[in-house]
């Protein structure tokens, strides 16, 4: 096949092939362009939003992915991208999906769109690429959280009564607030160090986050993270 190609070019082609196999970056370059094109219309892939005015949060079409590699578990990304079930019961900007009713505001689920799904091969490549987006390695490295255990009752009281996390988050299907992402699946989805770091200082990750600081004390945060571990591990 290579008969007609001049030696010099053959050599270059050979080197290119070796590079493509040996250096994942070359593959990522293609995937990066694909992700930018297919996902960038909704998802932020760089941190520029942090410099915009606060109202930017109201216009977001999707959660930012610029720190995906510091946030997600690779195996969760791989499977969710193929079967993207809803994580935020009221969408990415809840006020846009709230409608008044006789019983108070309700979520207008008809306005929540289905997420595009990828096939297994694409999902693998995209998950690998997203895991390379790690601008916040320093925040993760500063974490001291060591996963541990907590009794169900204590964990639940802490999450609800003491810290008020259940105002915005569900710790079981259909139990808890709906404006934040569901948290009974947080442990499968998120890296343990991210969970702890984000609860401590959400605005360090995203200055326009809608998540307040409930309690930044390390021991209190670790207890909350252990509760997410407990309920997450009970999920199928």
């Amino acid at each position, binding site marked *: 096949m290579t008969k007609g190609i001049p030696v010099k070019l053959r050599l270059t082609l050979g080197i290119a092939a070796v590079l493509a196999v040996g250096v994942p970056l070359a593959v990522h370059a293609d995937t990066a362009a694909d992700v930018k094109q297919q996902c960038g219309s909704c998802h932020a892939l760089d941190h520029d939003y942090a410099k915009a005015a606060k109202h930017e949060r109201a216009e977001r079409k999707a959660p930012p992915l610029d720190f995906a590699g510091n946030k997600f578990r690779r195996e969760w990304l791989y499977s969710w991208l193929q079967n993207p079930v809803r994580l935020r019961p009221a969408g990415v900007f809840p006020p846009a999906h709230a409608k008044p009713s006789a019983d108070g505001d309700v979520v207008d689920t008809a306005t929540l769109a289905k997420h595009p799904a990828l096939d297994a091969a694409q999902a693998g490549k995209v998950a690998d690429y997203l895991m390379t987006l790690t601008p916040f390695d320093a925040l993760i490295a500063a974490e001291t959280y060591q996963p541990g255990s907590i009794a169900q009752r204590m964990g639940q009281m802490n999450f609800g009564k003491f810290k008020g996390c259940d105002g915005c988050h569900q710790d079981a299907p259909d139990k808890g*607030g709906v404006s934040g992402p569901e948290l009974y699946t947080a442990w499968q989805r998120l890296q343990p160090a991210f969970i702890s770091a984000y609860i401590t200082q959400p605005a360090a990750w995203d200055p326009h986050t809608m998540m*307040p600081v*409930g309690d930044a004390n390390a021991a209190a945060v670790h207890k909350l993270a252990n509760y997410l571990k407990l309920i997450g591990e009970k999920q199928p």
Partner: protein
Amino acid sequence: MKTLLLAATLSLVSTTALAEAGSGKQLYSIYCTQCHGVAGDGKGINAAQMAVQPRDHTDTKEMSARTDEELFKVIEHGGKSINKSVLMPPWGDNLNDDEIHALVGHLRELCCQKN
């Protein structure tokens, strides 16, 4: 000359006040309506699941009983700081002083300027 200057100053003040009220409304929509409701009546999408109901910010009587300083404090430090429910979160890490002042201004509109 004097009147001209005064008029200029007045129009400056009123545009700043307007911008602030506008941003107070926007901030309220982003951070507060999830619990306090799109109409500010305490019936946000989270309210149905909450053990303590969010304050109705259109309740003229209750809201008039609070000073601006008290409102500022509960927004910055949360319900716990005034011996009320932890379900009212502290917003001091999300909002700066100017933004909290703008929110207090918006609360005053919600409670006390309905015609």
